[in-house]
């Protein structure tokens, strides 16, 4: 018995040992671990393995599983382009405001709504499309890199046959999109997804923001310490966190001073502030330098020192746009001048018959202002004072309101059309190749303004002129490595960067104030007294009797 059991045992062990390599093999076979960490591989889904003829067809397939996605998107500002400011009550959003760039979306829809996160918004007054399948899932979730949107098709992608000369919203030649391939590739948004709209606002690379350009696809660490592959390698949505397709971060209602910081462990914080990662005392508090720098955080935004210049990395931003010179023709034809040479050698437009004169800047020193986060727009119904520079958007905040901090801005200089009788900024019908009123085809201001004002249902006297404008863009991207942060004396100096911000105490900036005058007067009086005393002593000693 015993020997038999032993034999059986040995045989069993041999069998087991023999089988082990096989076991080991089967454990390691599950191919490659998907990099995205997602639990679903969309390329295996039957519903996505069919030829799609249009964007909405893809969206319908998405919605068959993601039942709430469209509803969520349709409630977000990415979709509505409509925003009621909680503090000022102003009705804002892309669908309403006038800016210092192309001006307005209304009456220019299919061009401007090419960047809408949907398909087919052709009439602004009717609001964005109502059907859930009009949401463009792919523009944010395509990982294949082949998806794009035409620049004049109300958000639709280029499909076969692509009309000759078509371009995408980034200005690249349009190629027909294989929607099935794009649909099977989906994942969480990457910088390429956000960038194709947000890097190209205002009609070209970095035109609008100044701190958002195609450089951020693969920036050097010196340009953006967060987004560089040699840095933190973050993507947009690492900071702009989402909740049900609603994003943190607003240019209308900015969290200009985050006093909460990181929050408690595990606490959800739907803000995109520096403090939400770095805390409210970001510099090492164990050193004197760190303590002194932390002292600044109540009055100076992080961005002010840590983004010394914007439009870095080789892509310029538009700094001046003068519409008043638009419409000049050569031999009856519109023309272009390309006098600005970017650091990479690329020539940029400095005049277009369609748009007027431009100036550009690289490595631009920001404009600084006290900012409490509130922005008020000069909407079409507000009276302006044409004798002064009109602020298209006013940034609110003062040194002594207890909540503002000094922020950096891109200050866009514009010259825009306004109604000479009514003193209001006017809307302009620029795009519309087939209409008899569009400025870009007819070059007649009166017609194009009238058409746009009728379109939005606002009065127009028929007399227009141009007024100088400023528009402010908070600078918050392109954070430099800490060794490139501004030195103290960039501001703490007589002619420093904050020389024009008056009304508050700042050492080193304002020598020769009242206290210096009093102090120096006392000091000089003492020196004069001492000198007089000494002279008197010498004089009397020489003339008088000697002692000692």
């Amino acid at each position: 018995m015993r020997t038999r059991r032993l034999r059986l045992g040995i045989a069993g062990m041999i069998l087991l040992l023999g089988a082990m390599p096989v076991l080991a093999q089967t454990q390691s076979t599950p191919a490659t671990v998907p990099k995205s960490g997602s639990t679903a591989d969309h390329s295996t889904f039957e519903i996505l393995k069919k030829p799609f003829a249009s964007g909405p067809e893809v969206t319908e397939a998405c919605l068959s599983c993601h039942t709430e996605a469209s509803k969520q998107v349709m409630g977000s500002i990415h979709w509505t382009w409509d925003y009621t400011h909680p503090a000022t009550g102003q009705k804002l959003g892309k669908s309403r405001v006038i800016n210092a760039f192309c001006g307005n979306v209304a009456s220019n829809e299919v061009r401007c709504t090419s960047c809408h996160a949907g398909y087919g918004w052709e009439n602004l007054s009717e609001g964005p499309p109502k059907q859930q399948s009009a949401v463009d899932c792919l523009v944010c979730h395509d990982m294949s890199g082949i998806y794009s949107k035409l620049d004049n098709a109300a958000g639709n992608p280029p499909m076969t046959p692509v009309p000759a000369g078509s371009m995408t919203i980034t200005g690249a030649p349009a190629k027909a999109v294989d929607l099935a391939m794009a649909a099977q590739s989906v994942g969480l948004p990457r910088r390429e997804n956000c960038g194709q709209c947000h890097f190209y606002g205002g009609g070209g690379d970095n035109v609008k923001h100044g701190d958002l350009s195609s450089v951020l696809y693969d920036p050097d660490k010196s340009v953006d310490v967060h987004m560089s592959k040699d840095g933190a390698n973050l993507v947009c949505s690492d900071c702009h966190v989402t909740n049900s397709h609603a994003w943190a971060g607003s240019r209308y209602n900015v969290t200009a001073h985050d006093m909460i910081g990181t929050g408690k462990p595990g606490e959800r914080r739907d803000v995109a502030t520096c403090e939400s990662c770095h805390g409210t005392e970001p510099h090492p508090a164990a050193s004197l330098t760190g303590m002194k720098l932390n002292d600044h955080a109540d009055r100076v935004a992080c961005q002010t020192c840590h983004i010394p210049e914007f439009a870095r990395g080789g892509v310029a931003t538009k700094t001046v746009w003068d519409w008043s010179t638009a419409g000049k023709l050569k031999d009856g034809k519109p023309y272009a001048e390309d006098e600005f040479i970017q650091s990479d050698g690329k020539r940029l437009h400095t005049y277009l018959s369609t748009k007027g004169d431009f100036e550009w800047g690289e490595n631009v020193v920001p404009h600084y202002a006290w900012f409490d986060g509130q922005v008020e727009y000069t909407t079409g119904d507000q009276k302006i004072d044409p004798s002064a520079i009109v602020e298209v958007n006013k940034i609110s905040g003062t040194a002594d309101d207890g909540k503002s901090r000094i922020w950096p801005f891109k200050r866009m200089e514009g010259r825009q059309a306004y109604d000479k009788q009514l003193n209001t900024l006017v809307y302009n019908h620029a795009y519309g190749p087939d209409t008899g009123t569009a400025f870009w085809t007819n070059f007649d201001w009166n017609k194009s303004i009238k058409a746009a004002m009728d379109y939005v249902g606002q009065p127009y006297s028929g007399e227009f002129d141009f007024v100088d404008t400023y528009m402010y863009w908070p600078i918050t991207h392109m954070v430099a490595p800490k060794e490139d942060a501004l030195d103290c004396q960039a501001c703490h100096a007589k002619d420093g960067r904050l020389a024009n911000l008056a009304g508050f105490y700042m050492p080193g900036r304002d020598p020769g104030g009242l206290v210096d005058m009093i102090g120096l007067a006392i000091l000089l009086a003492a020196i004069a007294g001492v000198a007089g005393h000494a002279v008197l002593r010498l004089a009397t000693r020489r003339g008088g009797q000697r002692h000692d």
Partner: protein
Amino acid sequence: MTERLVKVYPKFERFWHWSQAALIFVLLFTGLGLRGLHGLLPFGSAVMLHTIAALALVLLWIFAIFWHLTTGTWRHYVPTTQDLFKVARFYAYDIFKGAHHPYRKAFWRKHNPMQALTYLALKLVLFPAIWLTGIAYLTYNFWELQPNASLLLEIVANLHVLAAYLIATFVIVHVYLLTAGHSFVEHVKPMITGFDTIDLTPEEEAYLAADEPGRLKR
């Protein structure tokens, strides 16, 4: 009464005096730079140097206060009107006639009454003023969220600067007066060697000779 060379400035007092002088010069120099009146140092370095010198001076003052209290030397600064008028008259008038300084230093009165009064004012008014405003400025981080913190900081800073100008004024007058009465070198020497010419009572002389012979020079 006999005039003797007596050690009236012990090691610690001399150390305190000269390190304080050096720190005050560093503070005045960096402070003027921070105020924007010269640009000889980068602002950041000036801030650090000013802060470190200030903290060192605060530490020194803590030791000095302890020393004054425990050794009883604070009594040198108790104000007195005795001979005050004579000394004032000397600086304002008699000095031009080549008169001798009227004050004779005593073992427990090594400063003349005007000097003692000035030092007392310095120690009780100007030094605390610059100390308190400086610490308030340095600890701004702890009260930055108070209402009107910015205005308060401006007031604190200006008081600090005003006190600094007055201290600078003291330094100028202090150094100038080293030339009055005796020569500059004769005035500075005691603060280096510790020995000064003092009028000793027979009792004081006998005590020193018996118990602290090292403090008497033959």
